[in-house]
């Protein structure tokens, strides 16, 4: 019999804690498959965030660090500067990366730190129960913006990929989405390319994965996937924001 599909060995075969319909599982798989296909699992050192992916260190089948909230890019910097031949990545959500860890991500990008950042943007704090994130859309209802995000009161969402692309430092920044097969295939290409560029010592890469949070959005998984098309992608357009390799 011919094997046409197999679970990647770079994910530990244990149940994950993510909610049904959440796209973290897909994101994990894309990262794990990329590491496996590039043959760098044994060289990989990952950094898990604080947020829904806080237990990611149990799921990736490689050496891992658990970082304090927002500090993953600094932790990854410490690792990469100690182990320059290893493949170092962070996996961070929008609260972790774009709010409390805003300084760390900006400076890691500015230094063109040779790490790969997997950035999950689902416009909400998932783990703590659905509070407003720096990427929460205008008028979006969350548990701390119960009347909808009032931009006059708390400002506009942060477009991380666009913002970091204004820096001269970073090598590769792309935003992709995980809400349909076509987008997931593109996401896979972007994630793998990011790791490939690190392998070639090109420097900082960040892939923003527009993701869902059916539980805290108060939707079914299918509604959530559609909400990405109708609301997220219009605000967070997909595409390459920086690619020094293509310049």
């Amino acid at each position, binding site marked *: 019999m011919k094997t046409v599909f197999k679970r990647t060995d770079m994910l530990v075969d244990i149940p994950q804690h993510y909610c049904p319909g959440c796209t973290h599982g897909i994101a994990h798989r894309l990262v794990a498959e990329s590491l496996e296909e590039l043959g760098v699992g044994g060289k990989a*050192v990952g950094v898990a965030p604080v947020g829904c992916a806080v237990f990611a260190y149990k799921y990736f089948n490689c*050496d891992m660090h658990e970082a304090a909230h927002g500090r993953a890019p600094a932790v990854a*910097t410490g690792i990469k500067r*100690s182990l320059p031949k290893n493949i170092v990545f962070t996996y961070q959500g929008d609260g972790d990366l774009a709010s409390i860890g805003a300084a760390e991500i900006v400076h890691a990008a500015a230094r063109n730190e040779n790490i790969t950042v997997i950035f999950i943007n689902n416009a909400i704090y998932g783990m703590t129960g659905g509070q407003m994130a720096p990427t929460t859309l205008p008028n979006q209802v969350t548990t701390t913006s119960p009347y909808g995000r009032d931009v006059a009161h708390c400002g506009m969402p942060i477009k991380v990929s666009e913002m970091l692309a204004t820096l001269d430092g970073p090598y590769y920044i792309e935003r992709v989405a995980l809400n349909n097969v076509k987008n997931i295939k593109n996401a896979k290409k972007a994630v793998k390319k990011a790791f490939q560029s690190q392998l070639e010592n090109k420097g900082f890469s960040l892939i923003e994965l527009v993701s869902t949070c059916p539980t805290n959005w108060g939707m079914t998984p299918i509604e959530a996937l559609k909400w990405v098309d109708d609301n997220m992608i219009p605000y967070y357009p997909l595409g390459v924001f920086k690619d020094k390799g293509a310049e």
Partner: protein
Amino acid sequence: MTKQLMKGNEAIAEAAIQADCRHFFGYPITPQNQIPEYMSKRMPKVGGCFLQAESEIAAINMVYGAAGAGVRVMTSSSSPGIALKQEGISYIAGARLPAVIVNIVRGGPGLGGIQPAQSDYFQSTRGGGHGDYRTLVLAPSSVQEAVELTQEAFDLADIYRMPVMVLGDGMLGQMMEPVEFGTYKRREVPTKEWASTGTDDKREPNIINSLYIDPDDLEKENLDMLKTYDEITEKETRSETTNVDNCEILIVAYGTTARIVKNVIKMGEKNGVKIGLVRPITLWPFPSEEVAKYASQESTKIVVSVELSTGQMVDDVKIAVNGVKPVGFYGRTGGVVPLPEEIYENVVELAGGTK
């Protein structure tokens, strides 16, 4: 080896390099800037990495990453900057990682000042960050001792897998003294099988982590750490005594203050007042037994804690003395350094005046 004249801060930085520290992450703050400056000059020459972080917070998290990757790593800062690092220090303690943190203390609270102080005693010895943990705190009182203790700090960190703090003050950091390297005899340290360096497809993943979601697991980890802290208290508590036998006034002072107190002892000798000194070298663990021993002797009328603060170490002195003798305090704070005469007059006054 010949002696060379060096500033305390630079000597501490060179000592770290001599101890095979090849990674330094820091952020500018007075009065410790000569440490990162020296590192930025020296590290590239020895194949090491100096990186100026975007903040103290980033710097300590870089330390966390590098320590988890199994290298010898150090950061330095001064009081407000150390306060910012405390979350990271707590994570380093929780993840059982070896790292060296230098605090060249300045006056506080808040932005405080930039002159020498010892007002970070609480911050240093009470854990500093959140949670049930300790940091080993070494308090040199000369540039030579700062060199040796910095070197030993790396060994202690590796042996006990924990953050070790070298606590100086602006005076120690800024003054120049002759120093000799190579006087410290290295201790045996364990290998770092736990380090997260990539599995190389040869072992199960190593995970650097301080998260234990099950309270039973966390309690077990806390108790395991306590066992280490008890072992350190038993084996590593260190102090120096001067003129303590049959003294009337027993002073407890550390770092810069202890040096000034040595002049106070001489003034006492001239005036027929026998003053002794216990100088804690480890602030945590605190040399309670030494303090208790000389407090208990019949001749000792009073034990006085002398500090550059409004009274922080005095709490530990009281715990050590445990009521067997009165405990007094004298200190100047905010960056003011007292003259020996001033300390002498005040401790004699506390002891009930001269005979």
